[in-house]
C-alpha cells in the first residue's frame, strides 16, 4: 500500500487518531508480517501529522464562550416560545438577507471576503513615522506632477504630487517597509525573502512581486489599492501580518480594494478601466454566431476577471460582433445590450442578470 492509500483507509486513520488495543495489535502484527510495508506506513504517519499540523488553525477555531452561552440562550428561548403550538416563532436574527449573497459567493468559490470589526482610532502617517529613527529617509512631492525614484532595493516608486513617502535607514535588511501619505504607484523588485509592506492610513498592503497603486491621502475617508499585475494582500494595520488570505483581502490584477476609514470595511471591486493581462495571448474578440459561453471564456481569460451568469437562460445564446477595439466595460456593454441583460460588479466579479436570446 502506498502512503496515500493508507491515508484513504479508515482503519489506518482511525488507528492514528484514536488507537485502541485491538488496532494497535492489528497494525503491529501486520508490520511484523510484512516488514516491507514499514516505509510506506512511516511516511503515511508523517504525512498525517503534517496534515494535522497544517489543519491546526482550523482545529483550534474557537467560538467565544460568551457566544456559546448566548446562542444556547436564544435556542432555549425559541424552544420555549415554540412550546407545543407547532408554529415557528419569529426571533431576532443575528444576520439579515443582503449579506447572504456575498456569503454564498465566498462559500461556493471557496474564497474569503473578510470584514473587520476593529475599533482603533486612525493612526496616520505622522504616527507611523514617529517611531522611525532620525536616519530614516523621507521624500515629499509638492511639484504638481508625479515624481519617479527608486528605493534602495531597486523598486520603482511614482509618487503623486501632494504625497510623502518615508522608509527606515535599514530598509531592505529584514523587511522592505515604506510609509505613505497620499498616492504612489509601486513596481516592486522581486525578493521573496524580504517582504515589501506599504503602511498607509490604517491599511497595510503586502506585496508578492507586482505593480500596484496605493492611494491614502490623510484628508480622504477611503484608502484605495489597485493591482496592475501580480498579486497583493491587504489588511488592516495592527492586524498581525500573515501570508494567508484569511488575514486580509487578496487582490488579483484588475481588482481593487477600497478601505473605508469610517466603517473600517474593505470593499473589493474592479478597477475603473480593466486592462488586458500581460503575458496572456489575447483572443481576436471577433465573433460570428459564436456561443456566448465562448465569448465569456475569452474575456475571463484575457482580463483575469470572473464572469458569473445564468447558464440556463444565456448558455445557448450566440454573438455576432467585433469587440476587439473596445475596452472591458464597452465589451460588457455590447454583450448586455445584445442579450438584454444587465451586469453589476460584486466582490471583484462580474455578475450578469436577466436577458435571453428568444
Amino acid at each position, binding site marked *: 500500500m502506498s502512503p496515500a492509500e493508507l491515508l484513504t483507509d*479508515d482503519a489506518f486513520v482511525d488507528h492514528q487518531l484514536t488507537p485502541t488495543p485491538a488496532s494497535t495489535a492489528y497494525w503491529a502484527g501486520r508490520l511484523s508480517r510484512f516488514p516491507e510495508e514499514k516505509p510506506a506506513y512511516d511516511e503515511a504517519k508523517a504525512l498525517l501529522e503534517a496534515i494535522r*499540523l*497544517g*489543519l491546526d488553525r482550523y482545529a483550534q477555531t474557537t467560538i467565544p464562550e460568551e457566544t456559546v452561552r448566548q446562542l444556547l440562550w436564544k435556542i432555549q428561548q425559541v424552544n420555549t416560545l415554540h412550546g407545543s403550538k407547532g408554529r415557528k416563532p419569529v426571533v431576532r436574527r443575528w444576520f439579515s438577507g443582503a449579506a447572504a449573497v456575498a456569503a454564498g459567493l465566498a462559500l461556493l468559490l471557496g474564497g474569503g471576503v*473578510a470584514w473587520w470589526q476593529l475599533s482603533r482610532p486612525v493612526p496616520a502617517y505622522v504616527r507611523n513615522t514617529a517611531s522611525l529613527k532620525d536616519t530614516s529617509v523621507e521624500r515629499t512631492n509638492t511639484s504638481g506632477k508625479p515624481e519617479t525614484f527608486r528605493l534602495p532595493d531597486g523598486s520603482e516608486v511614482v509618487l503623486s504630487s501632494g504625497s510623502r513617502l518615508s522608509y527606515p535607514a535599514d530598509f531592505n535588511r529584514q523587511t522592505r517597509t515604506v510609509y505613505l501619505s497620499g498616492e504612489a504607484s509601486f513596481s516592486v523588485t522581486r525578493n521573496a525573502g524580504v517582504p515589501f509592506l506599504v503602511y498607509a492610513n490604517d491599511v497595510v498592503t503586502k506585496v508578492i*512581486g507586482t505593480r500596484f497603486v496605493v492611494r491614502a491621502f490623510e484628508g480622504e475617508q477611503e484608502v484605495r489599492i489597485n493591482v496592475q499585475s501580480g498579486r497583493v494582500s491587504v489588511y488592516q494595520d495592527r492586524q498581525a501580518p500573515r501570508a494567508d488570505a484569511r488575514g486580509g483581502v487578496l487582490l488579483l490584477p484588475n481588482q481593487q480594494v477600497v478601505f473605508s476609514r469610517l466603517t473600517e470595511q474593505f470593499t473589493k471591486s474592479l478597477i475603473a478601466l480593466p486592462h488586458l493581462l500581460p503575458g496572456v495571448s489575447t483572443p481576436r474578440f471577433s465573433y460570428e454566431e459564436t456561443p456566448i459561453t465562448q465569448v465569456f471564456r475569452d474575456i475571463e481569460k484575457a482580463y483575469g476577471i470572473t464572469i458569473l451568469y*445564468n447558464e440556463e437562460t444565456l448558455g445557448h445564446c450566440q454573438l455576432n460582433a467585433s469587440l476587439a477595439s473596445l475596452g472591458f466595460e464597452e465589451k460588457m456593454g455590447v454583450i448586455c445590450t445584445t442579450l438584454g441583460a444587465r451586469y453589476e460588479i460584486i466582490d471583484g466579479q462580474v455578475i450578469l442578470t436577466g436577458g435571453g436570446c428568444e
Partner: protein
Amino acid sequence: MDPTRDESAEQVLWHAFRAGDEEAYTRLYHNHIRALYRYGMSLVPASESFVLDCIQDVFTELWIKRERVTTPASVRHYLLKALKNRILHLLERKEKPFQRFQEMDPEELWAEPSEVEQREELAHARTREERLELLIARLPPRQQEALRLRFVENLDYGRIGELLEISKQSAQNLVFRAVEKLRGWISVVSVLFLLFF
C-alpha cells in the same frame, strides 16, 4: 477523551433528549457546538452571524422534531450534515439567478497558483505550521473540506461521502488526490527550506 468519540454515551444522551430531557439536549449542544462552529465557519468564512443563525436553526428544529427523529449512528456526523444542509438551503434560496455554481464542478473554478507565486508566499511563512497551512489552502475547496472532516472531525469516508453528496469511493479519491499533491509539494518545499523541514 473527547466525549463525542464515545458513541454509546452519545446515544444515551440522544435517547434522553428525544424523550424531552432538556439537560441531555444542552449536553449535546455543548458537546458539538465547537465542531459545528468551526465547520460552519470553514464553509462560510465571510459571516459568523450567518453561521450562528444556521446552528440555531439546526438545534431548534431538532427540538421541534425530537419525537420523530431517529437515533443516528454518529451524532457528530448527523449534526454536521444538518448544518451543511441548512447553510446550503439558505444560500440557494438567496441565490436563484446563479445556478451555474451548482452545476459546475467547483474544482474547475480553482486556478492553481504558479510555482513562483507559491514560492514567494511560502518564503513569507515563518514556521512549518504556516507553510503546511498555506499548502493545504492551495488545494481545491472540496479536497480541503474532505481533509478537515477525515483528519480533524474524524469522520469515516462513508460519512464524508454523505456530507459531500458523493460516494465513499469519491470521498477517498478526494483525499487521495490531496495527499498526493501535498506529498509532492512538501518534498519540493523541504528542498527549498531544508533547515526548517
